């Protein structure tokens, strides 16, 4: 499924969170959304997921507006940031919630999808554990498995690696790229620029509600954007033929006064 966001504006309390933003999401691509806090990344993801209606503009799914409901929910999975879990359900029951859009029509396929999702994020061994007994990283991987269990064509993940240790972060990024290679369109909001530049196929750099750069990761995270948008200087190099960006120090002489 292709998602085309056209002229998306979201206003809240008189201020624009997103202003006239265009973005396309394509199958088979790992797209990283990067930008400083308050750039509007999470809001954009919610608009793409059909959860938040834009003030102006439209989101087209394969060229058509969606009315929401289970038809869209089967094709599009959304993983919010923060990892809200309200009841102390087991890992397996939490992951199984990803099958709700499928309405239990094919229980064998549901079971297979749940098992595969738990295996992919390494939580199969935890399946009978209560979710409030897990570590932050285990919980994040459980919630990622929940999103994978939808078996959607598009996965929108808001900071999916925020709570993970380095090894799990690498596993998760490799998993997202594997999903993309298998045809899923993956959009991930990322704050870790070194992982974003290393693993994503394309980066979209956002600032104050607009897209300021878009394209190949190392081109988007050039010295100028890092200084002007993030207010940092970074070590930029290559290692094993892959681009490396390591935030190094706060940039001198930028218009930015700090992350607020």
């Amino acid at each position: 499924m292709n998602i085309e966001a056209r002229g998306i504006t979201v206003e809240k309390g008189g201020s624009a969170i997103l202003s006239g933003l265009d973005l396309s999401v394509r199958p088979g691509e790992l797209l990283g959304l990067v930008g400083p806090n308050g750039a509007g990344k999470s809001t954009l993801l919610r608009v793409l997921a059909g959860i938040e209606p834009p003030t102006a503009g439209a989101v087209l799914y394969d060229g058509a507006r969606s009315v929401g409901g289970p038809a869209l929910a089967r094709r599009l999975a959304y993983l919010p940031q923060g990892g809200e879990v309200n009841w102390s359900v087991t890992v397996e029951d939490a992951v199984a919630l990803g099958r709700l859009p499928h309405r239990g029509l094919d229980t064998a396929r549901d079971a297979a999808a749940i098992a595969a999702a738990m295996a992919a994020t390494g939580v199969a061994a935890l399946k009978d554990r209560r979710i409030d007994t897990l570590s932050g990283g285990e919980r994040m991987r459980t919630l990622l498995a929940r999103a994978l269990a939808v078996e959607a064509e598009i996965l929108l993940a808001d900071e999916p690696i925020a709570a993970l240790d380095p090894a799990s972060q690498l596993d998760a990024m490799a998993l997202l790229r594997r999903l993309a290679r298998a045809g899923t369109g993956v959009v991930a909001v990322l704050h870790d620029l070194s992982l974003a530049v290393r693993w994503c196929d394309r980066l979209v750099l956002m600032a104050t509600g607009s897209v300021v750069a878009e394209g190949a990761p190392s081109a988007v995270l050039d010295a100028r954007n890092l200084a002007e948008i993030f207010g940092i200087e970074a070590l930029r190099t290559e290692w094993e033929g892959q681009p490396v960006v390591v935030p190094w120090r706060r940039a001198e002489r930028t218009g930015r006064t700090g992350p607020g």
Partner: protein
Amino acid sequence: MSGRGRHGLLATALGALALLCAAASTMVGYAPLDVAAAAGDLLSGRDTLGALVLLELRVPRALLGLLVGFSLGIAGAAMQGLLRNPLAEPGIVGVSGAAALGAVLVFYFGAAGAFSLALPLGGIAGAAAAAGALLALARGNTGTTALILAGVAVNSLAGALTSLALNLSPSPYAALEIVFWLMGSLADRSLAHVGLVIAPMAAGWLLLLRAAPALDALTLGEDVAASLGFDLRRLRAGLIAGTALAVGSAVSVSGAVGFVGLVVPHLLRPLVGQKPGQLLLVSGLGGAVLTLVADTGLRLLPVRPELKLGVVTAILGAPFLLHLLLRTRNPNP
């Protein structure tokens, strides 16, 4: 799945227990009654005193215990699921306060004696008014928190107006009558009461049960539930309407029976793996059991006049809840 099988077993066991409690409830009363003989008379159409007591007193009381308890239990589970908060109770959307006010107004204007169903009809009118106001709010894009605040406001207003009615009540006797009614009781209800509430209650239960998958989805928050294809606005409206129908009817016939809707979902939650959807049915059945046990127990106590049901459910429920909280307090974070 084993979870589903266990849920079915639990629901069957609780259902059987509720029926057993209802049967036991018909055995207990102030007049000595050979229930088997009376039932025999009733079935063979003999108009004996025993048959009359069974049909007019014992059976309505047992049936109302089932219906009221089920309504409070299932609505408590639904509200806790919607708000994702174990402290929620069915009255939180304001319908029980409003239903009580409706009945109190019937008392106040001296219409309670006009015909036997005047009180419950007043209660239903009160609940309908409160539900209408909340549904109008829910139709706009009102968040869950705002809805609850609206429910709190309705409850406070209804409580204040109830106090006002007591304040202005024409005689201390009338005030006492209102206070006693507010404590909740199933005594001296008839089959007409059952007939009045059974349809709206059943409609309410269906609305609440239909929300089970959406309540499960809400385990992971409102955004995830929306992304799983559930329309939160429709969900809130359905749950408010369902609660208003079930609980408004319950309060209308029984007065305010506290604690059932709070404590029963809490007690049963661990037995359904904490899944809010599966909690609905078993909570209803558990509510029926608790209400019937309390209502049967208070008739066995040698205390006259008989204790009010709402008093007994709270006296039974609160220590039980405290015990549970102390026992399950988790030493690990």
